[in-house]
C-alpha cells in the first residue's frame, strides 16, 4: 500500500488546487502546508481528511483577528474614511453601512468625497436617500478634503453620530492620488482631533494577488483599521485576505454579499473557512 509520505504528496496536490483556485497565493499556501506538515509529523496524521482539517483550523486561526468596533467609538462624530481601488465597491458599501447606522436610530452624515468620477455624487445621493442619511457634497471638481471637512462640520452642527466619507477610486501605484488621500486624512484630523477613527479598505473578492499590494500601500499611506471584502456572493473566494491577515494583521470587518442595501454582514471566520473548503 501507499506509504504515509506518498499519501501526503497526492493529498497535498489536491489541497494545493483548493488553495490556489481560492486565490490564497503561493507563499501563503506554502506556509499553510508547512504548518500542517509540522502538526502532521507530531501527531502522525497523514490521512487526507486530517491534513485538510489541520489547514482549515490554521486558516481560521489566521483570519480570526480581533476586529475593532465599526461605526462607533470615536468622536462624536465617529469618522469613517472609505478607501480602495477603482470599482471595488466603496460607494455601495457606504450606502449599506449608513443604513446599518440609521437602523440603530443614530444619525449619519455622508461626505461625497469623490469629486472626480462622472456621476459619483449622484450615485451616493441615491444611497443617502435609501439609508436615511444626510449627504454633504461640493461643486464638481471641488477639493475632496474640503468636502469632507464640510461634512464633518455639518455633523458636529447637527449632532450626528457618524460621518462616512466616500473617496474616489484610485490605483495605489499613483503617488499623487495617494498624496491626495493623505491630505484628506490630515483635514479629518483638523476637523475632529483623532479622526478618522476608522479607515475601511474596500477590497473586491474577485481580485487576485494584487490585493496584497493594495492593502500594503493603503496601509502605509493612511493606515487601515479594517477591510470590507465585497462581491463574496460571486464565485470568487477572497483567499487573498489570508495572506493579508497573516502579514499585515488587518482584520476583515465587513463582507459584501450583493448589490442591495441589506447585503452587508459582519465577517465570520467560520463562514469564510467553510465557503473556502466546502
Amino acid at each position, binding site marked *: 500500500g501507499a506509504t504515509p509520505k506518498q499519501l501526503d504528496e497526492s493529498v497535498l496536490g489536491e489541497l494545493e*488546487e483548493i488553495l*490556489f*483556485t*481560492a*486565490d490564497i*497565493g*503561493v507563499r501563503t499556501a506554502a506556509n499553510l502546508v508547512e504548518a500542517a506538515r509540522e502538526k502532521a509529523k507530531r501527531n502522525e496524521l497523514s490521512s487526507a481528511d486530517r491534513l485538510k482539517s489541520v489547514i482549515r483550523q490554521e486558516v481560521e486561526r489566521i483570519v480570526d483577528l480581533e476586529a475593532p468596533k465599526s461605526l462607533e467609538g470615536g468622536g462624536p462624530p465617529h469618522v469613517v474614511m472609505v478607501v480602495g*481601488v*477603482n*470599482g*471595488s*465597491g466603496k460607494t455601495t458599501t457606504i450606502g449599506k453601512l449608513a443604513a446599518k447606522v440609521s437602523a440603530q436610530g443614530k444619525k449619519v452624515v455622508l461626505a461625497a468625497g469623490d469629486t472626480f*468620477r*462622472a*456621476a459619483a455624487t*449622484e*450615485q451616493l*445621493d*441615491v*444611497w443617502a436617500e435609501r439609508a436615511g442619511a444626510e449627504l454633504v457634497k461640493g461643486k464638481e471638481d471641488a477639493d475632496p478634503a474640503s468636502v469632507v471637512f464640510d461634512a464633518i462640520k455639518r455633523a458636529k452642527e447637527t449632532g450626528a453620530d457618524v460621518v462616512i466619507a466616500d473617496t474616489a477610486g484610485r*490605483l*495605489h*501605484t*499613483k503617488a499623487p492620488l495617494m498624496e491626495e488621500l493623505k491630505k484628506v486624512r490630515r483635514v479629518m484630523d483638523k476637523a475632529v482631533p483623532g479622526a478618522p477613527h476608522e479607515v475601511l479598505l474596500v477590497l*473586491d473578492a*474577485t*481580485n*487576485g*494577488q*494584487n*490585493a496584497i*499590494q493594495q492593502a500594503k500601500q493603503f496601509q502605509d499611506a493612511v493606515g487601515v483599521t479594517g477591510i470590507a471584502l465585497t*462581491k463574496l*456572493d*460571486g*464565485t*470568487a473566494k477572497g483567499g*487573498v485576505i489570508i495572506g493579508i491577515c497573516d502579514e499585515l494583521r488587518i482584520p476583515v470587518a465587513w463582507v459584501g454579499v450583493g*448589490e442591495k442595501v441589506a447585503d452587508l454582514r459582519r465577517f465570520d471566520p467560520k463562514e469564510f473557512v467553510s465557503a473556502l473548503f466546502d
Partner: protein
Amino acid sequence: TVSKGFRAAKNRLAGKTEIGPEAVDESLRDIRVSLLEADVAFEVVKKFVARVREKAIGEVVKTTITDKHGRRIRVTPSDHFVKICHDELEALMGPVDATLKLKPKGQVSGVMMVGLQGSGKTTTAGKLANYFLKQEKKPLLVAADIYRPAAVEQLRVLGERLGVPVFFEPDTSPPELAKKGYAAAREKRCDVVIIDTAGRLAIDEQLMQELEAIKSAVAPDNVVLVVDAMIGQDSVRTAAEFDRRLSLDGFILTKLDGDARGGAALSIKEVTGKPIKFLGMGEALDRLEEFRPDGLASRILG
C-alpha cells in the same frame, strides 16, 4: 518588476553550457510560481508548463538558434529557456486581433459591453465611443444599465464630454432599450451603437438571461467581456460562463495602469480561445490601446 519565480529560473540556468531535463524541471517549478503569483489560472499554469517543458527538453541544449529574421545567433541555455517561455506565452495570447467586426458603410454596427460589477464597462464604453470618433465614425451610446444608481447619468456625462449622443428611456427593459437605441442611431445617421449593460455575476441566471435577450433582440456584431486586470483565479469561471452563454467576440482588459500582473489575460484566452481586443490604461477616455501580446507577456512572466 521581475518576480522571484522567473528570476530564480534564469539564475538557476545561468552559466550552464548545457541543460538536462532535471534543470529544466527545476526551472519550470520557478516559472509555475511566477505565473501563479501573476494570477494565471491554476489549470492554465499546468498546461503552459507542460507545453514549455515539451519544447525546452528538446531544444534548450542548443546553443545557436534562428531568430525571427532568419539569422543564426549564439545563445546561452538560460537565455534560450527564457526565450522559449516568452515566445510560448506570446503565442498563447495571440494572434493580434484588435479589430472589431463592423458592417459595411451605411449600416449600423454594434458593440455590447458585458462583465462583472465594477470591471470598467461604462468607462470603456466611453473610451470606445472616443476610439470610433477618431476613426471618423458616428457612435451612439445606449444606457442599458437600469439598476445601478446614477448609471445612466454616468454614461450621459461621458457622452456629453465627447459630443456623442446617449440613448435612454425610463421604464424600458434593457432589450427594448437596445432595439430603440438602434432605431435612434438610424434616425441620427450614426453607424455604430455601443451598449452599456449592468455589471452582473456569471451565476446570476436571471441577469444572464437578460444579456441573452439583449443579444437576440439586436444581434450586436461584437459582444465584448470587460475584465479587470486585477482579477484572480475567478477569471476562468467568469470568462467561460459568459462565453458559453453569449459566445463572446473578445475581451477588453482594464486597469492595466496599475501593478496587477494581469495573468487573467492568458487564462481567458486559453480557456475561450477568444482574443483580447483592447487594454484600458487609465480613467481618461483616451486611455484605450489596441492589444499587443508582447508587453503583456513580459508583465505576466515578471
